[in-house]
C-alpha cells in the first residue's frame, strides 16, 4: 500500500481531533491573567501564575456546594435506577411468559418517551408530592426515565448467561431470591458497573430537570451553577470566565480520563443491542 495517503489521512484525523480538544486547552491562555493583562496581550504567556480567577469563579457560583448537590443527585439516581432495572431485567430474562412479555413491552415503550414531553405534568406531580425544590425531586424522575434502558441491558445480559447456573443453584436448594442475589447478580457485575457509571454521568450532566425543579440557590446543582455563571458573569471578565470553564469541566474530564474505556463500552452496549 502506498505511503502518502496514510500520512495525509493521519494528519487530517489529528487536526480534527485537535479541534475537539482545543476548546478545552485554550482557556489556559487566559486563566492566569488579570483583566488588564488579558486586554493587552490575550495570547501571550502570563507574567505570573495567579489563582485569583479560580478563587473568583469558585466563590461567584459556590461550586463546592454545587459539587455536593450533584454528587447526592448522581448517587440517588444510581440507587433508584440500577436495582429496579436489574431485578426487572432478571425476571424478563428468566421467567418468560405472556404476562412478563407484556410488561416488558410496556417498560420498553418507556425508552422512547422523552422527558421533555411530560415536563408540565411531571412538575405538577412533583409539587403535589412535595418534591419540587428537593434533590430527590431530580433523581426519582431520572430513575424512571433511566430504568427502561437498563432493564433492556440487564435482560439481554441475564439471557446470555447459561441456564444451567440457575438450575444448579435451585438443585442446591436456593429459592428464587437466593438464586438471584447469590448466583446471578454477582455474575452481572460488569453490567452493574456500566449501569452505575453511565447513570452517574447522566445525572451529573442533567440540566433540564434541575432547571424546572429547583428554585433554591442552595440546592443548585453543578450544571445550574455553570449556566448561572454563563448568564450572570458572562464573558466580559474573560480571565475569570475561562477559570469558570476550567473548574466546571474538570470533574467530568477527570472522570472521562479515568473511565473512558468503560464509558465507550457502556455506550456501545446500548447502541449495538438497540
Amino acid at each position, binding site marked *: 500500500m502506498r505511503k502518502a*495517503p*496514510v500520512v495525509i*489521512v*493521519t494528519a487530517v*484525523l*489529528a487536526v480534527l481531533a485537535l*479541534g*475537539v*480538544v482545543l*476548546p478545552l486547552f*485554550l482557556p489556559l491562555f487566559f486563566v492566569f491573567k488579570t483583566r488588564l493583562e488579558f486586554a493587552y496581550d490575550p495570547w501571550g504567556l502570563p507574567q505570573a501564575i495567579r489563582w485569583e480567577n479560580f478563587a473568583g469563579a469558585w466563590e461567584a457560583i459556590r461550586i463546592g456546594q454545587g459539587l455536593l448537590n450533584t454528587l447526592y443527585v448522581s448517587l440517588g439516581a444510581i440507587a433508584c435506577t440500577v*436495582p429496579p432495572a436489574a*431485578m*426487572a431485567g432478571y*425476571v424478563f430474562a428468566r*421467567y418468560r411468559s405472556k404476562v412478563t412479555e407484556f410488561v416488558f413491552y410496556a*417498560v420498553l415503550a*418507556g425508552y*422512547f*418517551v*422523552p422527558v*421533555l*414531553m*411530560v*415536563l*408540565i*405534568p*411531571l412538575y*405538577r*406531580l412533583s409539587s403535589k408530592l412535595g418534591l419540587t425544590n428537593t434533590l430527590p425531586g431530580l433523581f426519582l*424522575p431520572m*430513575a*424512571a*426515565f433511566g*430504568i427502561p434502558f437498563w432493564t433492556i441491558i440487564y435482560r439481554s445480559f441475564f439471557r446470555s448467561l447459561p441456564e444451567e447456573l440457575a438450575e444448579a443453584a435451585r438443585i442446591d436448594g436456593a429459592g*428464587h431470591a437466593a438464586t438471584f442475589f447469590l448466583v446471578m447478580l454477582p455474575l452481572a457485575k460488569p453490567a452493574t458497573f456500566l449501569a452505575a457509571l453511565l447513570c452517574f454521568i447522566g445525572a*451529573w450532566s*442533567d*440540566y*433540564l430537570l434541575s432547571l424546572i425543579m429547583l428554585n433554591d440557590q442552595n440546592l443548585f446543582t*453543578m*450544571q445550574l451553577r455553570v*449556566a448561572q*455563571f*454563563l448568564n450572570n458573569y458572562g*464573558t466580559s471578565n474573560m480571565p475569570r*470566565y*475561562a477559570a469558570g*470553564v476550567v473548574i*466546571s*469541566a474538570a470533574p*467530568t474530564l477527570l*472522570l*472521562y480520563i479515568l473511565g473512558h*474505556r468503560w*464509558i*465507550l463500552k457502556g*455506550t456501545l452496549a446500548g*447502541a*449495538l443491542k438497540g
Partner: protein
Amino acid sequence: MRDWRGIGFQVLFLFPAVAFLAVFMYYPIEETFRLSLTRSTGLGDEAYVGLQNYARLIRDAEFRAGLVNVLAWAFWSVMIQIPYSFFVAYSLCLYRNRFTAPLRAIFFLANVLPSAITAMLGSFMFAPRYGVIATLAARLKWTWLQRIDFLGDPDLAFWSVFAVATWAYTGFGIVYLMANIEQIPREIQEAAEIDGANRWQYAWHVVIPMLSYPLRILAILSTVGSLKLFDLPYLLTRGGPGYATTTLGIILYQQGFTNWQYGRAAAIGVVIFLLSLVFTVAQFSIQRKEGELR
C-alpha cells in the same frame, strides 16, 4: 399446581421498576394528553377546550419558527454530521496506526461533557470582543472577522449553535460507526483489495451498503434528538435573536414555566411525541420492507 412462590417473586421483583414508571412516566404521559385539551394556567379551574391549543399552535409564528428550526436541524444533522462521522470512523478503522489508535477516545470526549459546560465553551469561542475567535481576529488584524457576532446575528446564530452541537455530539456517531465497521469480517476487505478496489472505493461500494442499518439508526437518533433539542440553544441564545434558534423544547419550556400556559405547553409535548413516533416508525417500516425483499 401453580407455583405461587415463583409468581410472588416475579411480582415483587417487577414492582419497583413498574412503580417508578407508573408514577413518573405513564401518569404524566396520560396527563400530557389530557392537559393538551384544556385551558389550564395552574391557577383556577381547567376548562376543556378540545383541539383549540393545537389550532392555536398552528397559527403561532413562534411555534412555526421552532418547528422549521428543529426540522432544518434534523436535516442538516443527517446531511453533515453523519457523513462527517462516517469519514472519521472509517479513517480511524482503516488507517489504524500508532497515531490514530488513541484518537477514538478523544473524538468521544466532547460527548460526555454536560451541555451547560458545552454551552460555556461555545460562548467562550464565539463571544464578541472577548471570545477566542474575536481576540484571535484582533491579533491577526482581521477586522471583518472581529466584527462578526456569531450568536447575535439572526442569520448566523442557528449555524453557530449547530457548530457547537456538531463539536459536542458527533463523537457518538463516530464511535458507533467504528464498532459496526470493525464487525465486518476481514475477508471482505481482502476480497475487495484483490479485486483492485482502493480503500475509498471499498468504503463506497462495500462498507456503506453494509452499514445501511446502523446509518439509519443514527439518522433516527439525530432526527428524534433534534425534535427534543433544548439545552444548547436555550443556554447559548435563549432561542434568539428573535426566533432564529428557538426550538419546540424552548417554546414548551417558556409556555409552561414563563407564561404558565400548561395546556399549550402540553400540546407541544404531544406534538414532539407524535413527530418522534412518526419518524421512528417510518424508518423502521422502510427497514422491514427492504428486509422482506432480500
